[in-house]
C-alpha cells in the first residue's frame, strides 16, 4: 500500500505541475478522439491525432479508448475527459441514440463534437457526421462480389457489433445489392455481432464447417470477421468461394495477393481523425458550419460528410496507403471552403 500511495502522490505532483502549465494555454484546442471501445480500426486515429496536433498547432489531440465496448464506459470516459479540460471531441457513438445525451452535455459545456466513423441519430447537437458511407461501401463491395461470382450464387454476410450504428445499414445494403440481381444472387446467412476474435473464430469456423458447400461468396463488413474469414479460407485452401473484405488488415491484404480473397473495401480512419481534428479547431476559432453545405443524407442523419471509400483488388493492394492518402488530401483541400463559414 505505501508504495502505491507514494506513486499516486508522485502522479499527483506531476498532474499539479501539468495543470499549472496547461492553465496558461486554456484557449488552445484540445481534441479527444474517442472510439466506442478497443478495436484495430481506430488505431489509425492515434497517428492522425499526433499529426494533426503537429500540423495545426493544437493543444492536444489525444486518442482515448474506453476499456470495453460498452456505452456506459464510453459516457463516463467522455464526461471525465470534459472535466479534464478537453474542449473538442471526435466521437464514435457507442449507440446512435444512447450517446446523444452525453454528446449534448459536451456541447452544452462549449465543446464541439463531430460524430466520426459512425453517426448519431437526429436530432443531435453534434456538428455533423464524418465517416464512411457504410451503407454505400457495403453496397459497392457486394456488387464487386457479385461480379466476381459471375452474377449468380448464394452469399454469406459476416458483420460487426449489433450496437454499432453501422451494422444495420450494412445488412440492409448487402440485401439491396443482392435484390437488384432479381433472384440470381441471394443472401443465405447473416452472422452479426462477431467483431471480436473469439466469437468470430467460433462462428465463422462452425459456419464454414457446416455450410461451405452451400455458399459461393462471402462479404464481410467488419474488420475482425474479414480477418478471420480470410484466414479460414486460407486454412481450408479454398479458392472457389469468392470473398470481399473490408479495411486494411495485413492478413486480408496478403490473402488478396495470394488469391484467397478478391478485394477489400478500404475505409479512411486516418483521414477521419486528421481532418476531423482540423475541423474542430477551425470551429473553435470561430468558423461556423454552413447550413446549406452539400451534405449527404443517410438513414441516421442529414448532415453527413463522406470520408471516402475505395475498392482495392489484387492490383491496387500494394499501394493502398497511397490511395487513402490521395482521398484524404482531396477532401482536406476543399473542406473549409465547402463546409465552413469562416470569419
Amino acid at each position: 500500500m505505501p508504495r502505491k500511495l507514494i506513486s499516486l502522490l508522485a502522479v499527483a505532483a506531476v498532474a499539479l505541475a501539468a495543470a499549472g502549465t496547461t492553465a496558461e494555454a486554456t484557449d488552445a484546442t484540445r481534441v479527444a478522439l474517442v472510439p466506442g471501445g478497443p478495436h484495430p480500426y481506430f488505431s489509425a486515429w492515434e497517428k492522425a491525432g499526433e499529426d494533426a496536433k503537429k500540423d495545426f498547432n493544437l493543444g492536444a489531440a489525444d486518442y482515448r479508448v474506453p476499456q470495453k465496448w460498452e456505452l456506459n464506459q464510453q459516457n463516463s470516459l467522455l464526461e471525465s475527459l470534459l472535466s479534464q479540460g478537453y474542449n473538442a471531441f471526435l466521437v464514435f457513438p457507442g449507440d446512435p441514440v444512447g450517446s446523444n445525451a452525453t454528446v449534448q452535455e459536451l456541447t452544452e459545456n462549449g465543446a464541439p463534437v463531430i460524430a466520426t466513423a459512425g453517426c448519431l441519430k437526429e436530432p443531435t447537437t453534434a456538428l455533423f457526421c464524418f465517416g464512411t458511407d457504410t451503407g454505400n461501401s457495403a453496397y459497392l463491395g457486394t456488387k464487386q462480389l457479385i461480379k466476381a461470382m459471375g452474377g449468380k450464387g448464394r452469399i454469406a454476410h459476416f458483420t460487426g457489433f449489433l450496437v454499432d450504428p453501422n451494422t444495420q445499414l450494412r445488412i440492409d445494403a448487402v440485401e439491396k445489392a443482392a435484390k437488384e440481381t432479381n433472384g440470381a444472387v441471394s443472401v443465405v446467412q447473416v452472422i452479426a455481432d462477431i467483431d471480436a476474435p473469439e466469437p468470430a473464430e467460433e462462428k465463422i469456423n462452425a459456419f464454414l464447417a457446416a455450410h461451405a458447400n452451400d455458399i459461393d461468396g462471402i462479404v464481410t463488413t467488419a474488420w475482425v470477421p474479414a480477418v478471420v474469414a480470410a484466414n479460414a479460407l486460407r486454412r481450408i485452401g479454398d479458392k472457389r468461394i469468392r470473398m470481399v473484405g473490408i479495411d486494411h488488415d495485413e492478413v486480408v491484404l496478403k490473402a488478396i495477393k495470394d488469391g484467397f480473397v478478391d478485394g477489400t473495401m478500404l475505409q479512411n480512419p486516418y483521414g477521419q481523425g486528421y481532418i476531423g481534428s482540423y475541423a474542430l479547431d477551425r470551429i473553435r476559432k470561430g468558423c461556423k458550419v454552413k447550413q446549406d453545405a452539400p451534405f449527404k443524407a443517410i438513414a441516421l442523419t442529414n448532415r453527413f460528410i463522406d470520408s471516402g471509400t475505395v475498392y482495392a483488388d489484387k492490383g491496387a493492394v500494394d499501394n493502398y496507403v497511397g490511395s487513402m492518402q490521395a482521398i484524404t488530401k482531396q477532401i482536406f483541400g476543399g473542406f473549409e471552403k465547402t463546409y465552413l463559414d469562416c470569419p
Partner: protein
Amino acid sequence: MTSAPYGWAPASAARAALSNEFGLVALIALFGAWFALATPGFASSFNLFTLGRIAAIDIMIGFSMMVVIVSGGLNLSVGAIGVCSAMAFGWLSQRFGLPLPLTIPAALAFGAALGAVNGQLIVRSGLHSFIITLATMSVFFGLMVFITRAEAFRSLPSQVLAFGRLRYFGYVSPLIFVSAAVGLLLAALYRLTPVGREMLAAGANPAAAELSGVRVGRTFVFCHMLSGALAGVAALMSIARTGAAIPSMAGDLGQDWLLPAFLGPVLGGTLLSGGRVSVAGAFLGSALVSELTNGLLQFRVGEFWLQTYLGLMLLAAVLLDLARRKLVARLGASP
C-alpha cells in the same frame, strides 16, 4: 452470533460498526480533498454532477446484491435481471406507449418476478445460490437477447432522459436522492419491520431461525425478489442516464455489474456469511469506489489499470475487515 440476536448490536459492537462507516466517510472526505486539490477538473460542478449520477447507480446495484448477501447467498444474475427489467420497460413504453406510472412499476415487478424464480429454484433444490444464479444469469440474458433480437429501444418517453439530466444547484443529480431514499427504506426494513428481522435471522442461522418460527424458505424468496426489484431500479436509473434501453448496458450476461455489486456491500461491512447488514456502509462503500474511479481517471492513471486498483481495494477491504473483526473479538465484544 452469541449475545447479539439478529442485527441488533449491543453498545460495544455498535461502536465497532460505527467505526467502519465512520472510516468510510473519512476516506471519502480525504480522497475528495486530495482529488480536488491535485486535479483541475475533479471539483468542477460538471464532474461532481456526473460523479453523483454514476455513484447513485452503483449504490443501487450494491443494494441489489446486499439484500441477497444478507440471506447468506449470492445473486450473480443482478445484471441480467436489471437488463431484462430495462428491456421490459422499453418494450412496454415504446411498443404499447404505456405511461410511466404503469411502465415503471411493471418493470420493477418483472425484476421481482425473475428474482422470485431464482429464490424458488434455490429453496426447492437446496442448491447453493451461486450455481443457480450462474445458470439463471445465462437463461435470463439469453432469453432477453433472443426475444429482443438485441435491438435497443430508443424512443422512450422524454421525461426519462429529462430526469437523468436534471441538475440541482449545478452539482446534484436527483438520482442520488432516489438511492438515498431507497437506502433509508432498506434500513427501516431491517431495523423496524418483522420481515426485515426475519431476513437477518434466516441469513445468520437458518436452522435456528426455522426452529424459532421463521419461514426460512419464504424469507429467502423475498430476499431474491427484493434483489430483482432493486436491480430493476438500478437499470431504470441507467436508462435515465442515456435515454435508451440497450441490451448491452450491463455487459455480456450482465457481468459488468458483478464487481460494483460486491464492492459496495463488502466495503461497507455486510458479511458474506449473512445475517448482518450495514445499509449506510453499502451506500458509503459504493460511493467511495465511484469517487476513486472518477478521481483516478482524472489523474489519467491509465484507464486500463482501473480494474486492478478496484481489485486491490476489494482485497484490502476484506483483509482489513477481517483484522478489524479479530480485534473486536479479542476486545471481548461480539463481532
